[in-house]
């Protein structure tokens, strides 16, 4: 049987392209597939360490960093003083941090820990359902940068440098509070 070499090349290219896009897509969807950057951040309501109820939607119009962390997480503890500094630096511009603790311990222990670290932003007692809404939190720290319109501008898992965190904060601060710009 004669086989047209052009057809063979076309088939090979098509398969290669399919492979490339499939691998790329699978790698992207492997981590937090349901929650892509550019989407509206899922709202949640959680209790603070002193028993108050806080919803993400209460902060609409502000630039918010949702920081998933735990007391047992070394990198989170390295990051925490940076967040305290950055919160102080940018709070006046409408920046807020919501620290969602994924600990499974007495809230008093979390409160003591936060006090020792001089945390001045709200610490919320996390629930798995909130983690799931954010695509699952496979490891910590997990940061979601939410702009003034409620849109996720960036996200990241694992410790990165303070300058990179600050850069992301500046991005969300520069956003418009107009929710029409946000995706769904």
């Amino acid at each position, binding site marked *: 049987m004669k086989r047209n070499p052009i057809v063979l090349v076309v088939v090979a290219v098509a398969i290669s392209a399919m492979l490339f896009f499939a691998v*790329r897509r699978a790698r992207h969807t*492997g981590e937090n597939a349901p929650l892509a950057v550019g989407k509206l951040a899922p709202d949640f309501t959680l209790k603070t360490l002193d028993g108050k109820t806080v919803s993400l939607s209460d902060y609409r119009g502000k630039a918010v960093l949702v920081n998933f962390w735990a007391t047992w997480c070394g990198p989170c503890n390295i990051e925490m003083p940076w967040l305290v500094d950055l919160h102080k630096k940018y709070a006046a511009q409408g920046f807020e941090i919501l620290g969602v603790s994924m600990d499974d311990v007495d809230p008093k222990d979390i409160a003591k820990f936060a006090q020792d670290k001089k945390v001045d932003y709200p610490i919320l007692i996390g629930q798995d359902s909130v983690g799931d809404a954010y695509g699952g939190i496979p490891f910590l720290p997990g940061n979601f940068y939410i702009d003034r319109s409620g849109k996720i501008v960036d996200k990241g898992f*694992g*410790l990165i440098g303070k300058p990179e965190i600050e850069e992301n904060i500046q991005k969300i601060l520069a956003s418009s509070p107009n929710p029409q710009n946000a995706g769904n």
Partner: protein
Amino acid sequence: MIKPLVEKQRTEKALAKGPETSAPMFFTAASFRFFAIVITFGILLLGGAMSYAQEGFGSKVPSVTLSAPVIPSIVRGTPGKAELHFHITPGFHINSNAPSEEYLIPTALRMDAPTDIVVGRIIYPTGQNITLPFAPDLKLNVYSGEFSVLVTVRPLSSVLPGKYALRGRLKYQACDKAACYPPKELPVDFEVKVAKSTHHVRHDPAQSPHIH
């Protein structure tokens, strides 16, 4: 030159069929078979690649595994040690039994209490001190690679000789240099062989009150 048999048969078949028609190649049975093979191969390759890509993330999840323990032979009524070897996924570490910070979760083996064998002290290795990027001053005491834990066990004197199963759980919490994973528990099951005492009590004749 001698033509290979297969090629010869093909040539003969082609001659028998007469001159090739000008029909499009896609419609011949052979072409169809060829493309079916190519497409099947492509789909299989695609599936494999997707599975590889998805596992790429999953496989980076840290875990601790227990190597098959050597069954220690322990004389009843006396203490002995069972040595358990653990292996940590490369690239990750877990806190040692004595982590450097109070808030970190120590690696700890908790044994169920058996009825015939007393579980005593559990001896952990000393961890190694490491530092993380961005925090050179923060020292963490961890295990990485492989480590061994010694479990002291003492079969009661009344225990019948034989193999006895012991069960426990190793609690650990793993991290890499930039992130930490939730605490986990590994079931730890091993056996000890209880042996009869080989030591017989001998009476010293010189101390016997019956010797005069």
